[in-house]
């Protein structure tokens, strides 16, 4: 069938919905579409406001090491000697002040303070406190900014992580990576600008992570995160099936693109342009992804740095190494998730496993980016969706306890472009229950990340269903105190 005929057939197949949608405007629209050439693809798919970045960015790319399940701040960063000296005593009511506790412990009669056999010391010139669970963090403690006063509103994993990723507890808004991809575009046409890497602890099952967390919401669909799976087929259905060679694929895509362009002239539907862009991206990714993900060339000392786990696809260490390679290739937003931090019971044992999974590689990533000069313009964020409570969930024994969710304070750290290094920001009370200094809300963190990328979060909007949406909704203050 020749092209003309095919196009004619498509013209006759304009469906009822399209006809009704375009009915009123179709005459004008058709006239217009015949007068103008196909619009420039990249300009069509970028943000409405092309004046981005608004101001000189500090960070050109982000690596977000999301610790899914919520790590306990008290065993890692937020040193609270009182929890040990008051071990087993009730959480003072003057601290809790009648505040609601989360569902899984709400029925408990007793809230005994808990802390395992972990020791803390001060490290680096900054003298930041670190637990003995994080020996490798000692080496980067002067390169990171520890924020001890994060807080959120959500108390369950899914709403909390959705809130972190999209600025809303309800699903459906674009992910922060999608926003940034939409706003700033890509510097590498061969790879997606928003890449997602998953890993999980083999010791503790993870909370489920759904694709909505890296979804594009109402933004054009090529801004959704592309998940790279571990194993021989990192992006499903990307490779050509047996029997299809690259030339055939090229011819097929060219023909398809012609058809799609014709359809676009008929309907002016932007989704078609998204689709064309995605096919072309996939074609380029067929070569670029295997190249980028190939770690066989990495010298041994790299695995000494990241740990031997880095040789095993699907581990956190492997993903950290990939994150470095993706950063070197100018991927804009690299989102890692490590699952398994949710420790309602058996925390002293499990947290050792989880820190073993993540401590060395997190530290190695900072050091590796630094020595390559990439930390100058790369931002790294490390943290979970909320914190954990200072009292035991379930029965407290000298060497076993659990911790329930705690949204009122938790610790994250940031490193790299534009963030002060070797500082600790914010503080909590003696029980790590309430914030006592410099609270940082999730929207504040989002505003700060956008600011570092050169974006004013107040001006960065997308109109959808009659309203202009922002990542930070109607909230968010840039945390200027932690910026260089």
């Amino acid at each position, binding site marked *: 069938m020749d092209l003309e005929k095919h196009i004619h057939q498509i013209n006759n197949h304009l469906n009822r919905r399209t006809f009704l949608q375009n009915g009123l405007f179709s005459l004008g629209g058709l006239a217009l579409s015949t007068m103008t050439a196909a619009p420039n693809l990249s300009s069509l798919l970028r943000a409405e406001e092309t004046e981005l970045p*608004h101001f*000189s960015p500090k960070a050109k790319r982000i690596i977000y090491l999301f610790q899914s399940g919520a790590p306990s701040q008290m065993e890692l960063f937020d040193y609270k000697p009182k929890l040990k000296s008051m071990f087993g005593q009730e959480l003072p009511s003057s601290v809790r002040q009648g505040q609601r506790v989360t569902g899984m412990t709400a029925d408990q009669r007793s809230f005994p303070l808990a802390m395992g056999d972990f020791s803390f010391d001060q490290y680096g010139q900054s003298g930041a406190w670190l637990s003995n669970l994080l020996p490798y963090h000692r080496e980067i403690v002067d390169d990171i900014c520890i924020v001890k006063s994060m807080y959120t509103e959500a108390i369950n994993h899914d709403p909390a992580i959705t809130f972190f990723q999209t600025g809303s507890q309800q699903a459906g808004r674009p992910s922060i990576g999608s926003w940034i991809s939409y706003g700033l575009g890509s510097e590498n046409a061969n790879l997606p600008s928003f890449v997602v890497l998953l890993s999980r602890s083999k010791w503790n099952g993870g909370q489920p992570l759904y694709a909505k967390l890296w979804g594009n919401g109402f933004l054009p669909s090529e801004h959704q995160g592309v998940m790279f799976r571990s194993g021989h087929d990192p992006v499903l259905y990307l490779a050509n099936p047996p029997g299809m060679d690259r030339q055939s694929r090229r011819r097929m895509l060219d023909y398809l693109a012609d058809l799609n362009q014709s359809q676009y002239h008929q309907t002016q539907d932007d989704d078609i342009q998204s689709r064309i862009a995605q096919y072309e991206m996939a074609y380029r990714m067929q070569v*670029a992804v295997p190249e980028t993900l190939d770690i066989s060339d990495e010298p041994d000392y790299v695995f000494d740095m990241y740990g031997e786990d880095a040789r095993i696809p699907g581990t956190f260490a492997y993903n950290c190494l990939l994150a470095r390679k993706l950063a*070197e290739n100018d991927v804009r937003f690299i989102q890692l998730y490590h699952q398994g931090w949710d420790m309602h019971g058996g925390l002293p044992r499990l947290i050792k496993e989880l820190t073993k999974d993540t401590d060395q590689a997190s530290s190695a990533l900072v050091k*590796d980016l630094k*020595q*390559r000069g990439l930390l100058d313009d790369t931002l790294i964020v490390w943290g979970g969706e909320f914190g954990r409570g200072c009292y035991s969930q379930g029965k407290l024994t000298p060497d076993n306890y659990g911790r329930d969710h705690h949204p009122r304070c938790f610790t994250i750290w940031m490193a790299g472009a534009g963030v002060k290094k070797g500082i600790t920001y914010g503080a909590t009370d003696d029980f790590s229950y309430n914030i006592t200094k410099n609270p940082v809300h999730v929207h504040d963190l989002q505003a700060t990340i956008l600011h570092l990328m050169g974006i004013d979060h107040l001006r960065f909007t997308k109109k959808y269903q009659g309203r202009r949406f922002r990542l930070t909704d109607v909230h968010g203050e840039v945390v200027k105190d932690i910026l260089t």
Partner: protein
Amino acid sequence: MTLLEFQIAGFLGRFHPLVVHLPIGFLLLAGIAEIIARKRAINLDQGISLMLLSGAVASVVAVVLGWLLAADGGYDESTLFWHRWAGVAVAVVSVAAWLAKSGKLTLASNTYKASLWGMVVLIAVTGHLGGNLTHGPNYLLEYAPEPVAQILGGSQKQHIVLADDPDSVRVYQHIIAPLLEAKCLECHNDAKVKGDLNLASPEAMLAGGDNGDVIVAGNSHDSEIFKRITLRPDSKKFMPPGGKTPLSYNEVKLIEWWLDSGADFENSVIDTGVDPEMKFVLAQLYGLDTDPKSYVERAFVEATEPENLSSLVDAGFYAQPIAANNNFIEVKKKRTTDIDKSSLKLMDKVKQQVTWLHVGGASLTDQDLTFLEGMGNLTRLHLENNPITEEGLKVIEGLPYLESLNLYGTDVTGGVLETLQSLPSLKKVYLWQSKVSPEEATQIQEALPDVDVDIGVNLSS
């Protein structure tokens, strides 16, 4: 005048603004009644006569009280002269109009008409001048829409929009003067100089007032102006007086800051020096960001032609302005795209604009680096993974703004120190996997204590 007389005069004088509205009302009403009487051809003579009598009496009283108030002093002389005699004229003419209307005196037939309409005009003039004396000449049109203000020739209010750059915001001109205008100039302006003090210009301010110097440069607590605005609000000497809105805490801090820093009339915010408290005040009142800015945020270059960027893009580079509000550009050799060395020449046209340059892994040799010559605005330079030595780097010596230099994976040795020492703004240098030995790296670090010398993780390779 004895003190008692002076006090009585002062006391009575303050009733002038109260009484002065009576003749205005009575006499204007007489004018309106006269118009209606003529239009409808009805007889309102008795009523009009009563209005004129009341108005005449009230205007005489107002003139007397006004005379007493003027003895207080502190008003603009020429405005006061015209207001005074226009007021006297209103009194005289209104008496004449009453005499004519009531028939107490028989005058020429047109005298009544002339005196009535002359009186209305005089009231308007007198009232306006009086308003200017009390509220200042800008009061009436302060909030007038721009076209109205232009037609009426009123002075246009300058809306204060502080520039983004604290370097170009002048403390006196943009902050202190508007503050004085809002809170002090009503009584201390060119026209009305209470206490013989005029705060409308630097010269007048330096001249001081009845109580001598009003500002003492470098010492807020000795400055009369600061003393007056920080007195107890119920003190007789507190400024601004009489229940007018006092200065806010932040405004007092601004005056104090300006006086303590030397009360200079030219200095910018940055010259004046911003401590954490003033940083907060300036941010709160004006949204002024006084954080130190990097070179690319402070400096300005002309934008390059778009075709210069697109020719770089065609040659395989990433080339973009670094931000929408900034003409500096970033040029980058993509990791996966090889470039032809001849395309380095394309950068000749953007030498002033390029500030972030990445040409890592481009197989560049010392000879190739000559293209860097004249890139005076470079702040970040990535030359990593190229077989270059300190010989080739001589070309970047003296670059005034270079902050970060990436030389990892190059062949530079300890001899690079000389080049590094010639870079006054250098903050970071990356020497991992170069030919610089750990000992040499230590020497470089000692020679350049303010520079971050990174030799990477020392693991056996």
